């Protein structure tokens, strides 16, 4: 146990690595500026776009640039008000009752009271009852913790960004109008253009020397999943492009050969079937195999 505590202490970090090194160009510049303007105007922002379009990375960048802590919660059926506000340790409640001692604050409370940037990810997957707990903090700049029967002032610098994909039907709900009316600015983020995505991929594989032509092919695979609306329900994200590029480069390195279409196809077969969602009636592996044959001339 003491070893574990030692490890925890040693590995503790304030700095969370960005999962994607974003390129601030094109739509990302526009969205970033819109967030900046909305923040300065005191308006909360909602980012709309498919999974993996770079919404989280953009928010993280905004928080980093403005020197604020970044917290987030990804909403789902399982997110309860206590996930946001905080929960009480039952054993301590028996001892102290509902008090500061038994309370461990949730990410929303921490962000709101300390003036951080809070990302409410997949907001439209949240239950209305849960979303309503955000309202007082957004509108009245005050936070109520019912068990403590206390109001708390929200820090002036606190800023909320919502993110969601309204075109995703599964598990989503209509956003309650009260919440929607508090989020005034809605910015669309789609998958980036090929040239920007190419730069993003390049930025994320800097330790390898991957030929441009192979990055092109990687992006072609990904872009075909985004165009094939008839067969693909959830296409591949930027993370998939980066993942394939990195795996291809690493495999080639291990084999001591030049990265080629054959290795890329193998990487695609490992990554894409779990990264995309095909429509009922076909299997992801078969789809990716066929895709690789079409684009790369081989399925590895």
């Amino acid at each position, binding site marked *: 146990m003491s070893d574990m505590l030692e490890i925890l202490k040693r590995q503790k970090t304030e700095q969370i690595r960005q999962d994607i090194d974003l390129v601030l*160009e*094109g739509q990302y510049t*526009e969205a970033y*500026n*819109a967030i*900046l*303007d*909305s*923040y*300065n*105007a*005191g*308006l909360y922002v*909602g980012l*709309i776009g498919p999974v993996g379009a770079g919404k989280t990375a953009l928010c993280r960048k905004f928080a980093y640039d403005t020197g604020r802590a970044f917290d987030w919660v990804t909403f789902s*059926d*399982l997110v*309860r*008000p*206590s*996930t946001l506000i905080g*929960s*009480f340790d*039952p*054993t301590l*409640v*028996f001892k102290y009752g509902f008090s500061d001692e038994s309370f461990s604050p949730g990410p929303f409370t921490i962000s709101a009271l300390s003036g951080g940037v809070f990302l409410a990810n997949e907001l439209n997957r949240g239950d209305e009852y849960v979303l309503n707990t955000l309202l007082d903090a957004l509108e009245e700049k005050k936070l109520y913790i019912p068990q403590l029967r206390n109001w708390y002032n929200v820090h002036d610098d606190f800023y909320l960004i919502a993110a969601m994909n*309204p075109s995703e*039907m*599964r*598990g989503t709900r209509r956003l309650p*109008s009260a919440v*929607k*009316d508090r989020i*005034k*600015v*809605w*910015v*669309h983020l789609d998958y980036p253009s*090929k*040239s920007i995505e*190419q730069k993003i991929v390049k930025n994320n594989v800097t330790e390898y020397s991957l030929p*441009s*032509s192979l990055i092109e092919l990687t992006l072609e695979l990904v872009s075909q999943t985004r165009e094939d609306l*008839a*067969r693909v329900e959830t296409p591949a994200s930027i993370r998939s492009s980066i993942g394939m590029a990195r795996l291809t480069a690493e495999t080639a390195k291990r084999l001591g050969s030049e990265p080629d279409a054959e290795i890329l196809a193998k990487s695609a077969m490992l990554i894409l079937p779990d990264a995309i969602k*095909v*429509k*009922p*009636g*076909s*299997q*992801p592996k078969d789809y990716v195999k066929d895709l690789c044959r079409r684009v790369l001339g081989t399925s590895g």
Partner: protein
Amino acid sequence: MASKPGKFQFDSVVKFTPISFAGEFTRKMRTIAGLANIPSVRTTIAIPRFLTARYFRKETLDPMDYFEAAVYNTPYEDQEIAKKVARELLFPKQVKRERRQQKKVEVEDQSKLSGIDLILNELDEAGFDDLLEAMSEEVDLEDMLEEQDQSWGFMDELIESSDPKDQARLQLLEELNSDFAIVQHALNTRTLVDNFLESELGEQAGSWSPQVFQPSITLGMGDILRRQSQMPWEVATAMGMTRDPGYQKYMDDTVDIASPEALGSTMKYHNENQVPLEKNWVEKAFSRIKTMRDYYGLLQGLDQYRDPPPHAVEHGAEHEIRESLDIAQTIDRQHGTDLGDELFEKFQEKHPQPTLDQVQDATYEDGNDSWESMLKDSVSREKQGMDQHQLSELAKQIGNHKSSRMSPKMQQTQNSLAKDVATENLEKVDKMDAFLPELDHMISNKLIPDIERTMNAGRKLGVSEEDILERYNSPVKVLESYIASDLKDKQRYDSIVRKIDNVNPMQMNKMMADAAKNDNQMAMAALGAADLGQAMTSAQSMQMADGSSAQDILAQAIDKSIGGGTNLLKQWFMHRRNLPKPIKDKLRDMMRKTLLEIGMEWANKGTGSSEEGIIPVTDTRPYRDGDELDLIDIEATLSSLIMSGKQLNQMTTDELMVTETSKGKTSLGVLIDISGSMSGQNLAMCAVSVVMLLGKLDQKEVAIALFESNTHKIKGFEDETTLDKVADELLDLEARGGTRADSALRWIGNEFNTVTSSDVKILFFLSDYYLSENTEALTKLMEPMIHEGVKILGAYHGNYDRRRMEHMVNMMDGSSLKITNFEKLPESISDAIASITE
């Protein structure tokens, strides 16, 4: 209040302040019907706040800022409408021009500003006077907007200018897909335009068209071309056009290392920009084209036809004939050339005595006679000195070869050769025991040896003629011979019955009489499995040797060990209407048992089981560290406390019970069309599929109905039922003529809308889509389901109405599934479920 609501004129400069724009935009939005969110006062306030923030950041504002403020401050469902409204307000000239181009008759009436006061009053009431006043003092945008509006004038100036540089600017804007950048970014000067073009060139490097170069050079952007170019053809063309001293070296390197496609593109970009390529370079580039694949790559880059280098054709003919012929045929189709012929001739030249593998690789329809004679020669060469086993393999290699480049005549020649070799193979079999298995092996590979020669070969080894003929004869004839000889071998009967589709009455009467005479119940069971209806009819008037009713004995004799359970169900569905009631009742129990057995066999294959449905179960479990107090189930906790014999004040976390809910819920609605076109076999597989679904899924996640002119509801999502009950219903299922889907669709729509509240709703709809309802009626029936987010998996089989199927699939954002073989229906449904649950 110092705001200045400017006058909006459709064909002149549009003058807005952030406040008047917000007012006008909101007013216009409110006049539009069907908005998901009517703009509130908050929106009207948010727009000038957003614009003010942007002004302080940029120290400038342009129409695009106004446009973005309007769109961003509108909820996402209405943003497309917001774009249209904002565009009409901000770019009236452009809109008007586009409308004129589209020959639309009228432009909208000029908007009036009467709504502005209303909005401003609302703002006053909301207590934002101070803010608005401050804004109007600090942000005087009128001059700036007027300046931006002059962009159109500047664009006209460029269009009318005869200066080659201005023409180059316009051409480059077009090539970079930025035709309206001048207006969108208020580029009022040539310097601003040139700066924009420079930045776009950098942005789009790697995908420049050949037409980008000339205007860029005219504008003195050669340096940028050289610096930013990425692809080899871009780099080479940029260097060539700017007379870069490193050009020659770069071209020398390129010709040595670039891919064939890059070489082709380099030629194309040079040609289209009239940059001469050295003859030497072109020759060297062509000398790099070693294979037909290289050649195809070159043509892809070049984008026009060039004759292939002879060495590529030679290489293809010699080493890679199959792939090369594929490539040649693709090129022939694209360019109307005869490369395939050339390649095939070259192949013949290079391979005067090709092996069978080579001949099969060189299958070429236009080669026809030559190919056939090559095939014959190669087979005759290959079979020299082969033993029996090798001949068997050779026969299969010949017979199983398939190619899209084979004509029917070539196919015939190939089949005849395969048959010859298969016969020779049997003639070489030297052991009696090995003869029939080898004959079966050939027949199962669709190689039918010559009957006379096979009989002779078999005779020499002492193989029974009957056994050989059984392989060639019609299965009914064989069955007849078995019964006539009073055979009582279950395995043989089973094997032959599986090959029989139906038996004519005369044959059946004769066979039934023989079976009854010999009291051969196994033979009677075989007759029942072959054609239950006909067997019952024949048995009706016959008696067994002991005088008992042949029909009763037949009913007792039938079981699934002959012909299999699926066949038994098929016989039931085909003949049950003609069965006498006592016999029908007697058979029903066996059929129910068989149906449940087969259905459950399917249910236990692949994913899922009756214990684990798609729908998760909410359960309670003991509290663990990290669980939230919200999840504590008071009732279960108290029970746990009582069970542990403790009092309330003695409670520890061990007694706490929490509710656990698992992942998302799924509902599967199944509608299967069993109209008149359904045969007994198909009906049997539908029944099996239904049982399988009920066995596989949790009761609450599946609703099933079968339909024809009536709808047979098997169960709704909330209905409790038993498999026995369902099996009974299925065994009585009657398919009538028509195919009316309306009541079935209405029923399942209602089930989806009101009974189940799952997150994922899938409708499995199997039909031939020759439905009585027209597309309009179908649309109406599907609308409630679309509203509920139900997606369709449209399955079809045999001949089907493609248009209607696609209509349903498109409307419900689903996908289609072809059922190629009805025997595989349970498997297809099973796969569909697996893909849904994944």
